[in-house]
């Protein structure tokens, strides 16, 4: 059994394009849920706004790439306003109900046959990512090497001896942009949550009536958090759509939102770097278990009578679910959360 391959794969994925999508989506949720206490169960729909905004603009309406980005962002803002105006004055649970329903509505609308000529129905759309990859500074036919880093035919290998990381030049471009976005967003978030504005958000999370009694327009703050978190969700949608070079309605199910929550809780809510660490760990573990089981089956460590290759997928999710339960019992604060702070609620 090739442990080196298993770990290399898992580590490659742990900082790769898909992990970036989870990290970005969870960063948006962190502002909404972690800092402000807003239960947004429709982050998948915000990602869909970004992904479909871009795809529809470029493919169906023939607009330039940057227009697609702008439309995706505007769509996320409009959606946040539509969901927030009726619900943010009500109790926290109403936002949860409305967002989870809205996310399903968005997905159903995207796969509806009525306008499948435009949206592609359940097949989705492709052909919008070319302008993005045309900007790729990583050459398709690069060949060079420097110490333990080498590039052959546009494929980058970082060989650390025990493990190696491998990325195609398309992955590299997604990662350059994705990590760049994460860096910028985290700097902005860091400034915001440590400002008096962020203090008001945390106050709202603790007790919005109290904050109201101190003369703060709670509704406006909640709306700002919902909109900004939604924008970050749309950015996650861009990265998601571009990394796959297609959009498909059924990738934006509620599961997608729940992975964001898993990532956030795993990393530690209301911690700036929580979502990034959580996404890396989540995607590392997922790939480690999946690749490990596949390898074990292939090299007959696990006999086919116990487990065959088609059962690996469900089993991975079973194990991750179990891990999540254990995490909540033994380390509810996540990787870098503050346990003391979390325990204060229990009186």
């Amino acid at each position: 059994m090739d442990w080196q391959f298993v770990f290399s794969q898992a580590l490659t994925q742990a900082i790769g394009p898909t992990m970036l999508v989870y990290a970005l989506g969870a960063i948006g949720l962190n502002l909404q849920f972690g800092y402000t206490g807003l239960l947004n169960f429709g982050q998948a729909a915000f990602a869909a706004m970004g992904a479909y905004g871009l795809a529809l603009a470029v493919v169906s309406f023939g607009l330039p790439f940057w227009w697609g980005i702008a439309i995706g962002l505007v769509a996320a803002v409009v959606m946040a306003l539509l969901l927030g105006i009726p619900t943010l004055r009500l109790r926290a649970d109403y936002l949860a109900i409305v967002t989870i329903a809205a996310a399903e509505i968005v997905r159903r609308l995207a796969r509806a046959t009525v306008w499948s000529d435009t949206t592609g129905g359940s097949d989705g759309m492709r052909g919008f990512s070319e302008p993005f990859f045309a900007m790729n500074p990583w050459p398709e036919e690069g060949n060079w090497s420097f110490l333990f880093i080498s590039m052959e035919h546009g494929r980058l290998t970082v060989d650390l001896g025990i493990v190696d990381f491998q990325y195609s030049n398309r992955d590299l471009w997604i990662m350059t942009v994705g990590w760049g976005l994460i860096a910028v967003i985290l700097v902005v978030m860091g400034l915001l949550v440590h400002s008096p504005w962020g203090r008001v958000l945390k106050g709202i999370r603790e007790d919005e009536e109290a904050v109201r009694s101190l003369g703060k327009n709670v509704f406006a703050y909640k709306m700002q958090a919902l909109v900004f978190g939604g924008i970050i969700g749309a950015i996650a949608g861009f990265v998601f759509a571009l990394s796959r070079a297609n959009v498909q309605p059924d990738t934006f199910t509620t599961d997608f939102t729940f992975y964001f929550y898993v990532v956030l809780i795993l990393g530690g809510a209301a911690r700036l770097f929580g979502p990034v660490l959580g996404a890396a760990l989540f995607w590392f573990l997922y790939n480690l278990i999946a690749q490990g089981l596949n390898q074990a089956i292939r090299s007959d460590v696990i006999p086919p009578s116990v487990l065959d290759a088609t059962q690996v997928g469900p089993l991975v999710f079973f194990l991750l679910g179990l891990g999540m339960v254990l995490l909540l019992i033994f380390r509810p604060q996540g990787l870098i959360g503050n346990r003391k702070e979390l325990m204060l609620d229990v009186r």
Partner: protein
Amino acid sequence: MSADQQTGISAARAALAGMAAEPGVAKPDPILTATGVRRAFGGLVAVDVEHLEVQRGSITALIGPNGAGKTTYFNLLTGFDRPSSGEWNFNGRKANRMRSYQVAQAGMVRTFQLTKALTRMSVMDNMLIGASSQLGERMWAGLFPPLWKRQEAANREKALVLLERFKLIDKREHYAGELSGGQRKLLEMARALMLDPKMVMLDEPMAGVNPALKQSLLEHIKGLREEGMTVLFVEHDMDMVHEIADWVAVMAAGQLITEGTPDQISADPRVIDAYLGAHHDAAQR
């Protein structure tokens, strides 16, 4: 007590002395004037107060048996509930259309019966969030610390003075959730003062506070009046009312049944009836 403070007390008492002990009586210098405030939940009328004026610079107690509508009336005046009808003026401004946060910005700040400390924030952050018109609380300005650093430092100074006065200075870096029930009451009061209120509304400030702390809480409430603030508080405990209130308004079954000085109220048979239930018996007859 200094001479100043003595005159403060006598000023409030003197202004109210010799007023008729009847519901809705006009005060010489009211900071709050409410007329026809009514709140119905379906068919149940929780509050129906004809007229109430609160004298500026006084400590006024709002008392009454359980279910009299005191807290509902409180919630209405502070914008935390909407009335079915009625209007009121606070400090010369029409206040019945204001939202709760606008009421607070106008200078009427309330506390809650069940203390609302922001538990997973430090005591200091609890105080700082109270400060009004902070530039850094605007989202765009939050991104540029140099814009609000000086204001923040000034607020911090102010918070330290208040924490010192309320004996919470040693706890300033603790989570508010680590404080005892009584300390949370103190924190809530100190936090309200960060807004420089003109009027402080205390909803059962003594509920669940141990006797030792009660005395210091009483002194703090008197201190508010000595600084020129008006205090309106809801309370059950007649002894406490007697000790600090300049004026007492009594509610029963949603209505204001009488007003007067503490001495007048203790002697009023209607009040005793309201507390002991004769009032309800009479109504049924």
